[in-house]
């Protein structure tokens, strides 16, 4: 046979199926482009020279893996959908005399065309957009991007090679799958395969119940987990449970529910319910997995974008909690602080809002009647693990501008993320009376990055503070420092020094850092000062934050976009297949005595339910994920619930709007298919 016949046939097939293969090629190209971009970002020399490059590249590499995994699953899934739709066409060719090996040749050419087009378009778009993405990343990270290609020619070649190899392999797998589909089927089956799916779905009650249980358990975990340390681990457990639950409920649960409705004769045999219930049953049978996919993808997009944008937008708040002053010297002593003060003054930098106080910090376990320092740390007791900061009354009153008085056994108390409901508090062998619960507290970044609950305690005087400092060492198996000698106790009684620079100016703060660092290194070298503690400058730390949160934010948006595209494509294909199936029903119902308007209304309502079910479910998932995510975000000092609420609502609003637009656009294709 003519050698070019297969090539021409393949080209003709693609053109004829342009409605389904066009979006497939486009989606392939977009995935290739996204992969190229994320891969070249992960090896970009320009990014490597930025501050926090290690963090950025770690995040980007994580992104590369996710995009690659996504590409495999997504392209394979889409192709299997397309091949299933085309079995009839293959059967016809088979009947017309094309042998299976000829069909395989046609499929070879088709796959070659699709792969070549997707790769060419994708690589071109990837290269073109690479620079733009680079600038975007630079913008997010707040640094100036070097102009020109920062990926060298050799690196570029490597990126192109890896991309081509990965997608070559994916398309090869797709090809093998398609050929297998044709080979295992008999011609008659090929011709009829589109009708093979018309069997009435069975109600799988057990599956539906398991699904319900999984979803319930996932939701329960998400709502009830209060301990932040467990929240991270349990969050993943909840995610897996909810994913399983979603798939089972969409596939088995929906059919079971509809069967229940159908068994209720008084409900079922009503004009409005009759066609809807039976129609939905078949729709759910054919589309449940696709809809569950859309739902999971949508949920991921929502959680990812709202979470990362919350981190990014809340970064400043997070920094201010962690580093309350422009310059912070925690866990220090008077000599070191005097050295720092002198260095800063010598550099000509005026210190504002100066604060200085003595304090101790230690770890303990919460008991109903007090704090326990002797128990061994194990994960199951982590629920009551607490970080404690103690200051004396004089420093407290001075730093906060309060005017409290305390008896020798009295304390002021402030707790975060937990409560202590008794009027007394047992602490290191002594029972204190809680005189008052206070709101204002000395500013300290010491407890804020912890996974535990925070306790601020104000004791009557310095002597009491020192007694506690010693007691923390002497306590057997004390949670912190138990094996230290008493002689080292003075290091535990730390001194906090913090100040702001005029106008919170970053440059001034960084200049102060240089001055402090110089003095510090000098003293460390010649031993002239008994150094203690460390120096933390907010402007300096911000750069670390930006590289972490910024790259997470970028990745969140990037993957969000990719997943949204996938969801859109699945929606589009669903609309198309629905349209073809509905066409016949549409005509029959009209002949049997439904008006055109009624038929349209019935079908429209069903399609609407089918397509907005995943969005609504995704919204509910996100809603239930809210409490646990909010707790995880609290670790990043983003405790403000309102802030995250707005991030979630904003993301959901934007996503829903996009979803509706896509629905409206694809619905047109659908009605064209139905009404011709």
């Amino acid at each position, binding site marked *: 046979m003519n050698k070019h016949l297969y090539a021409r046939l393949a080209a003709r097939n693609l053109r004829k199926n342009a409605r389904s293969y066009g979006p497939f090629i486009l989606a392939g190209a977009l995935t290739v482009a996204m992969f190229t971009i994320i891969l070249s970002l992960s090896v970009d020399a320009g990014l490597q020279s930025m501050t926090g490059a290690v963090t950025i590249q770690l995040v980007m590499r994580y992104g590369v893996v996710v995009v690659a995994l996504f590409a495999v699953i997504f392209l394979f899934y889409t192709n299997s959908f397309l091949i299933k739709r085309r079995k009839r066409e293959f059967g016809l060719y088979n009947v017309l005399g094309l042998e299976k090996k000829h069909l395989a040749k046609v499929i070879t050419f088709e796959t070659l065309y699709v792969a070549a087009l997707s790769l060419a378009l994708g690589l071109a778009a990837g290269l073109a957009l690479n620079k733009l993405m680079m600038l975007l990343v630079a913008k997010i990270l707040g640094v100036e991007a070097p102009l020109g290609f920062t990926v060298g020619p050799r690196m570029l070649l490597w990126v192109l090679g890896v991309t081509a190899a990965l997608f070559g392999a994916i398309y090869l797998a797709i090809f093998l799958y398609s050929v297998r589909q044709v080979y295992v089927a008999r011609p008659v089956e090929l011709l009829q395969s589109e009708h093979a799916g018309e069997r009435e779905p069975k109600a799988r009650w057990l599956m539906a119940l398991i699904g319900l249980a999984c979803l319930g358990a996932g939701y329960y975990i998400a709502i009830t987990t209060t301990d932040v340390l467990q929240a991270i681990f349990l969050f993943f457990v909840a995610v897996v449970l909810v994913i399983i639950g979603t798939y089972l409920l969409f596939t088995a649960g929906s059919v079971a529910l509809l069967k229940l409705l159908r068994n209720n004769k*008084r409900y079922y045999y009503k004009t409005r319910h009759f066609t809807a219930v039976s129609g939905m049953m078949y729709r759910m049978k054919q589309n449940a997995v696709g809809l569950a996919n859309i739902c999971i993808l949508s949920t991921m997009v929502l959680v990812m974008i709202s979470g990362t944008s919350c981190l990014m937008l809340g970064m400043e708040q997070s920094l201010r909690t962690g580093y309350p002053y422009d310059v912070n010297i925690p866990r220090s002593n008077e000599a070191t602080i005097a050295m720092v003060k002198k260095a800063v003054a010598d550099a000509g930098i005026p210190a504002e809002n100066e604060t200085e106080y003595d304090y101790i910090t230690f770890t303990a376990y919460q008991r109903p009647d007090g704090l326990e320092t002797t128990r061994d740390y194990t994960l199951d007791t982590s629920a009551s693990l607490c970080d404690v900061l103690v200051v004396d009354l004089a420093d407290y009153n001075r730093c906060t501008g309060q005017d409290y008085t305390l008896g020798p056994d009295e304390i002021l108390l402030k707790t975060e993320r937990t409560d202590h409901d008794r009027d007394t508090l047992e602490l290191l062998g002594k029972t204190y009376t809680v005189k008052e619960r206070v709101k204002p507290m000395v500013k300290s970044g010491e407890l804020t990055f912890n996974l535990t609950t925070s306790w601020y305690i104000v004791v009557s005087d310095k002597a009491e503070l020192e007694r506690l400092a010693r007691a923390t060492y002497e306590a057997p198996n004390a949670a912190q420092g138990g094996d230290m000698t008493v002689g080292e106790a003075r290091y535990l009684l730390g001194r906090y020094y913090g100040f702001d620079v005029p106008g919170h100016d970053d440059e001034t703060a960084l200049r102060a850092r240089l001055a402090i660092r110089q003095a510090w290194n000098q003293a460390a070298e010649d031993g002239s000062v008994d150094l203690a503690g460390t120096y933390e400058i907010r402007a300096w730390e911000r750069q670390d934050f930006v590289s972490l949160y910024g790259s997470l934010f970028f990745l969140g948006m990037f993957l969000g976009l990719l997943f949204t595209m996938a969801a859109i494509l699945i929606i589009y294909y669903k609309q198309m297949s629905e349209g073809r199936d509905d066409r016949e029903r549409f005509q029959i119902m009209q002949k049997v005595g439904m008006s055109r308007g009624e038929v349209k209304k019935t079908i429209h309502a069903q399609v609407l339910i089918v397509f907005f079910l995943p969005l609504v479910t995704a919204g509910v998932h996100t809603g239930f994920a809210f409490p646990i995510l909010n707790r995880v975000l609290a670790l990043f000092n983003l405790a403000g619930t309102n802030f995250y609420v707005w991030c979630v609502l904003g993301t959901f609003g934007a996503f829903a709007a996009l979803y509706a637009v896509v629905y409206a656009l694809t619905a047109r294709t659908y009605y064209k298919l139905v009404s011709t």
Partner: protein
Amino acid sequence: MTMLEVQSLGKIYTGRFGGNQVRALSNVSFSVEKGEYVAIMGESGSGKTTLLNILAALDKPTSGKVILEGRDLSAIKEDELAAFRRDSLGFVFQDFNLLDTFNLRDNIFLPLVLAGKGYGEMAERLQPIAQKMGITEVLTKYPYECSGGQKQRAAVARAVITEPKILLADEPTGALDSKSSDGLLDLFASLNREGQTILMVTHSVKAASHAGRVLFIKDGELFHQIYRGDSTNEQLYQKIADTLTLLATGGREHE
């Protein structure tokens, strides 16, 4: 009493851009009496299906009118049309047109449910009809589980359960084997004996030979008609075959 009257019916299909006019029917007139069993015969493309679609109010004629029990179909408003079709007409199609999402019982119930009838009444009406059609055992099965004959009998049940004024059948034996065809034609004959008016479009001589009167249509025009009179099915069969031969070998010369 005249059940259906067709007056100088014409239908012209116009191409998308105004050109390419096709005359599907021209000046077709006939009437059907209450309780009559009429077959309309013609080759593929002769305009049979167009005629049936107009009679079913699924399509509109370009000229002429259709009067069912004194009511002009063209005078019925668009939004009443579906209800009218549901209550007054019953349909049987060549390819059954059963919905694969319903079992046979629900397929038969469909027009009644659309009319808002209660379950009790529907079940009551179904029982004798299902028995007569011989499908009582397969009522809970789905179309894909049934034979062609069973499907077509279910379709007939669906058509007559609304007690229509006229039963319109479009090539009802077209997709059936000969045994099922015979069964279906007997069913039609027995329905007709009970007073059901039937109008059947077919190009099967055998199917037409069960009717009381046969109309022949060619190239959109009514060409000839044969009354059964006292003929048996076999005699009518012969008459029809002769007429068809005449039609095929240039009947115009004898017109």
